[in-house]
């Protein structure tokens, strides 16, 4: 989403779902995995909204749908491409929106090509793209040239049109297994009911083409004018209550808090950093350094830039890759908090092996999850394992104070309801005690590498206070020591005068703890709930809401007014906080027209072009780095989504057989004994994996709750009646499901909710298995990730847990 809209977050909110007229729920089984979603969806349905569900199987969510389509796992871009094609061919797009708020008119570099499955710039040796040809044609002012009309052959719109002209409904049917007329019905229904929203979760992200699938959603929504509007959006349903919060705090290895890019090994100073990331990133980084190092971060010493660890840009340190490094012996210690990788990581055999290569592992969790007792797994000999394992009992969510940031970007404060049991501690207490002890150990050190530990500002109190942490994230005026009142205070302060631990959270505790607000008044009746907690940024509830207005700054949808330009006050005002560059800049000004201010073009990006705003017209003096303002987010696997087969696929790519799977996907090969690949001859069926409502994620908590175990006591393999008949099993029989990597035996669930379908004219079967079990807990069961493949999306590093090839037989 970030390369499309500028921010990597769900655009709208849970409570905004009630404003939609149509839902496309694809890659999400929200009735099961986000039960609260249905409350808001049902409100929209009561007002006549249509619900479309696309899923490899008929789920509990599908039971509520008006239109259901069973799709072959991993082929989403094929039918989404057909929908884009349909929208363009039938002129169903919102022309004013496309012209004014997207980059449709900008002229693409003439060196850009797409041919036989490859974009220009592909290096077959490194399997990576050089992205220079994916830019715009620039004028002498270094700004993109705009075409006069959409049909200019160089325009983004023409490139888009040409790219998706290959995606006919019939082609999409052959790839996905969804009948062409159903795809047409989905396109018609979604394009003609406004506003429309798209909901997705891990069903879209656990693919080697994950990022591009979401890009396809973004393109559809930009074409239809559904971004920035109540009831619209691309909504990434977060799977854990605080996933948004953890990503905001730099869950990703190449981020710092607030999505500030991490410095890399070649950044010798702030200037190098600015040259790579744009001058726009300097202030958030300096503010972060001020938060972390306080008075020790001064202008004279480059705001303690040296104290930050620098990452090696050639190292991909995403989850699976980290376990590969661990297997190679790179890590001595793993600090494992609230993660059960031995159950949750695709091709989990790598995790099992890698953990044995550690000297020590510290696990902090509620229960002794599988990862914590990997040495006890049946078949593993504890005598051969040198890893020392230490277990910290963690406090449960209700036993600790702090904030949770939900999918709606609402930072919601809570107090501890009860004291932790026994010796269990809140995470903050544990980390605080750990840091203080580590600092004492280094107290006498004079080595430069230890300076960051000694110079860190760490002042959360004797008994650490979670509120103080949130206040640090919100920020201080470092000249006075007072809390920053609002995001605006942060924005207008000179660099180095303010600190924020996470600049997008600025203002959350500025005027009292706004995250603790519990006023559920909703005067606009749009589900904005402006005085309930605090939404980042600046309490804006619906991102990019400038796009809900026309060029004159007036709401396009009179029933769903979010913001507008008040000519008498000369100010952007509204029911929601206006997402504009400057509230005083009118709709006709260059700033006031921008609907996507976090993108360097200020536009929604149909084509994810390489571009940096504010590049100097005159090159800087020799030796001086070229520093622009804001570089655009890029997708490493192409500026437009293209359909590629999953790594393990039952067929070849109909569009370009020579480049069948994603050319840039990271196919695991470091450990051939573990990371095996299967072929359709041996493993003819497609496996897809998912969660069930009764068990949560890797089951570390829920499989220890008897009341949940009786609701879903065991994993299973779901299959069609045809497949069950073919292998001679009935519901309740045990079946052995095997892949190139492993095999498991589970109960068979024979159902009409999975149907045989045709792919390239050949009958194909999908088997579905939940993945939440492991060998420990009150409800032990085989782990489905014994079967899955750890092929990674080249941009996000997410494993392709949703698709691999398997065989099945009666056990």
């Amino acid at each position, binding site marked *: 989403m970030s390369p499309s809209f500028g921010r990597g977050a769900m655009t709208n909110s849970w409570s905004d779902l009630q404003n939609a007229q149509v839902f496309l729920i694809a890659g999400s089984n929200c*009735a099961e995995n986000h039960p609260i979603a249905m409350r808001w969806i049902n409100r929209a349905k009561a007002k006549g909204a249509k619900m479309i569900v696309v899923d490899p199987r008929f789920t*509990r969510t*599908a039971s509520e749908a*008006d239109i259901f389509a069973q799709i072959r796992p991993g082929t989403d871009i094929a039918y989404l491409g057909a929908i884009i094609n349909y929208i363009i061919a039938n002129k169903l797009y919102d022309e004013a929106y496309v012209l004014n708020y997207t980059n449709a008119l900008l002229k693409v570099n003439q060196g850009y090509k797409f041919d036989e499955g490859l974009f220009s710039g592909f290096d077959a040796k490194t399997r990576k793209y050089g992205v220079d040809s994916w830019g715009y044609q620039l004028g002498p002012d270094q700004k993109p040239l705009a075409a006069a009309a959409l049909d200019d052959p160089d325009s983004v719109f023409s490139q888009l049109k040409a790219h998706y002209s290959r995606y006919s409904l019939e082609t999409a049917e052959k790839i996905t297994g969804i009948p062409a007329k159903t795809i047409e019905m989905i396109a018609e229904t979604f394009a003609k009911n406004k506003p429309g929203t798209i909901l997705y979760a891990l069903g879209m992200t656990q693919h080697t083409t994950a990022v591009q699938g979401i890009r396809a959603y973004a393109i559809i929504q930009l074409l239809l004018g559904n971004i920035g509007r109540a009831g619209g959006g691309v909504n990434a349903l977060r799977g854990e209550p605080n996933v948004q919060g953890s990503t905001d705090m730099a869950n990703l290895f190449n981020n710092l808090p607030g999505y500030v890019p991490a410095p890399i090994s070649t950044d010798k100073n702030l200037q190098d950093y600015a040259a790579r990331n744009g001058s726009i990133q300097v202030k958030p980084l300096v503010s972060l350094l001020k938060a972390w190092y306080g008075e020790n971060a001064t202008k004279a010493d480059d705001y303690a830039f040296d104290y930050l660890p620098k990452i090696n840009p050639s190292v991909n340190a995403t989850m699976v890759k980290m376990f590969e490094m661990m297997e190679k012996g790179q890590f001595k210690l793993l600090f494992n908090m609230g993660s059960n990788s031995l159950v949750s990581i695709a091709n989990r055999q790598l995790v099992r092996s890698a953990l044995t290569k550690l000297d020590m592992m510290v696990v902090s969790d509620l229960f002794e999850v599988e990862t914590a007792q990997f040495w006890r797994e049946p078949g593993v000999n504890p005598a051969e394992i040198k890893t020392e394992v230490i277990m910290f009992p963690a406090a449960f969510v209700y036993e600790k104070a702090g904030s949770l940031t939900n999918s709606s970007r609402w930072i919601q404060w809570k107090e501890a309801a009860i004291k932790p049991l026994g010796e269990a501690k809140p995470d903050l207490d544990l980390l605080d005690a750990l840091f203080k002890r580590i600092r004492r150990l280094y107290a006498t050190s004079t080595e430069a590498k230890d300076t960051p530990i000694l110079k860190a500002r760490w002042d959360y109190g004797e008994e650490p206070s979670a509120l103080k942490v949130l206040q640090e994230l919100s920020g201080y005026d470092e000249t006075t020591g007072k809390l920053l009142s609002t995001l605006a205070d942060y924005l207008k302060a000179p660099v180095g005068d303010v600190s924020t631990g996470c600049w997008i959270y600025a203002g959350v505790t500025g005027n009292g703890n706004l995250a603790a607000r519990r006023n559920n008044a909703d005067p606009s009746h749009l589900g904005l709930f402006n005085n309930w907690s605090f939404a980042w940024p600046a309490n804006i509830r619906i991102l990019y809401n400038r796009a809900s207005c026309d060029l004159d700054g007036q709401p396009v949808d009179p029933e769903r007014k979010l913001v507008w330009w008040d000519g008498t006050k000369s100010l952007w005002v509204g029911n929601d906080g206006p997402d504009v560059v400057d509230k005083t800049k009118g709709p006709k000004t260059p700033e006031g027209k921008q609907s996507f201010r976090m993108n360097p073009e200020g536009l929604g990006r149909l084509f994810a072009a390489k571009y940096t705003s504010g590049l100097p017209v005159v090159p800087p003096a020799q030796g001086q780095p070229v520093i622009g303002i804001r570089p655009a987010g890029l997708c490493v696997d192409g500026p437009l989504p293209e359909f590629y087969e999953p790594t393990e696929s039952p067929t070849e790519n109909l569009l370009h057989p020579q480049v069948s799977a994603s050319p840039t996907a990271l196919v695991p090969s470091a450990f051939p004994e573990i990371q095996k690949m299967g072929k359709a001859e041996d493993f003819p069926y497609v496996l897809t994996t998912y969660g069930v409502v009764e068990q949560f994620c890797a089951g570390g908590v829920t499989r220890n709750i008897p*009341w949940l175990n009786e609701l*879903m006591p065991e994993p299973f393999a779901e299959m069609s009646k045809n497949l069950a008949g073919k292998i001679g099993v009935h519901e309740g029989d045990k079946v052995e499901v095997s892949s190139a990597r492993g095999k498991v035996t589970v*109960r068979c669930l024979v159902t*009409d909710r999975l149907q045989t379908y045709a792919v390239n004219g050949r009958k194909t079967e999908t088997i579905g298995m939940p993945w939440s079990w492991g060998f420990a807990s009150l409800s032990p069961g085989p782990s489905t990730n014994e079967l899955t493949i750890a092929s990674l999306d080249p941009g996000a590093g997410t494993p392709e847990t949703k698709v691999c090839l398997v065989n099945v037989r009666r056990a």
Partner: protein
Amino acid sequence: MARKMIFVDTSKCTGCKACTVACKEWNDLPAEKTHLIESYQTMRDFTPKTWTYVTFIEQYHNKTMDFFMRKAQCFHCGDPACLKACTSNAISKSADGLVVINPDKCIGCGYCAENCPFGVPKVDVVRKKAYKCTGCVDRVENGLTPACVQTCQPGALQYGERETLMAKAKERLNEVRKRYPGAQLYGEHEMGGTTYVYLLLDAPEVYHLPQHPSVPVSLTLWKDVIRPVGSVAVGGAAAAVVVGVLGNWFRGGYRREGGPPDGGEHHSPAGKAGKGGKE
């Protein structure tokens, strides 16, 4: 007090089973050993420890999949057969419509279990008491909604005044019928009007519910005709013999011999109405 109603809108039920957990939590009922029976269903019948569960029905016709989910629990009948059958005055009906077994009075005779057309009450053979959903009478009397209603996220369960809610239910039925022509309300008139009223998406038989649930004729005879006379003329004990004989005569055997071998719980004879899962 005006009669209350719980509207179970199965068109909104997503089968999340949170109602089962909320019920067990509030009523302090332990978990039981289960396994998958069919579809995502793991509970087949009521037990002394399971007072509500969700049934899953899958139907595939003309390339259209129907996946029906229904929360099962005591209907809390307007004319409860269990209350009529109870020999120890242990069962009462509150003004707002909840039918409750008083364990202090219950002698575990099982007549309630035998006579309920939905197969709801179950006798714990160890404790010799009958158990079933109480409608969370202890919550309702204190101004709270039943635990299942309180927890339902998609809004499939609503609690309120019967008259108001019934009107809403009918409105909803008209809406749902556009998609499911066979949809119907179940419980508006059945058994004197039940407190849990369902919007079913298809005929009751599809959900394994009796199409015309009724109070056994023998029971009506006993309670409304014979006992009023008998209690004056021959006394209760003799009358109990009469109802036993009549019961056998009308229904051909009125209860299974002995308890189940697995201890503690009484399961109704197979095939009796009110089962969600197919065997």
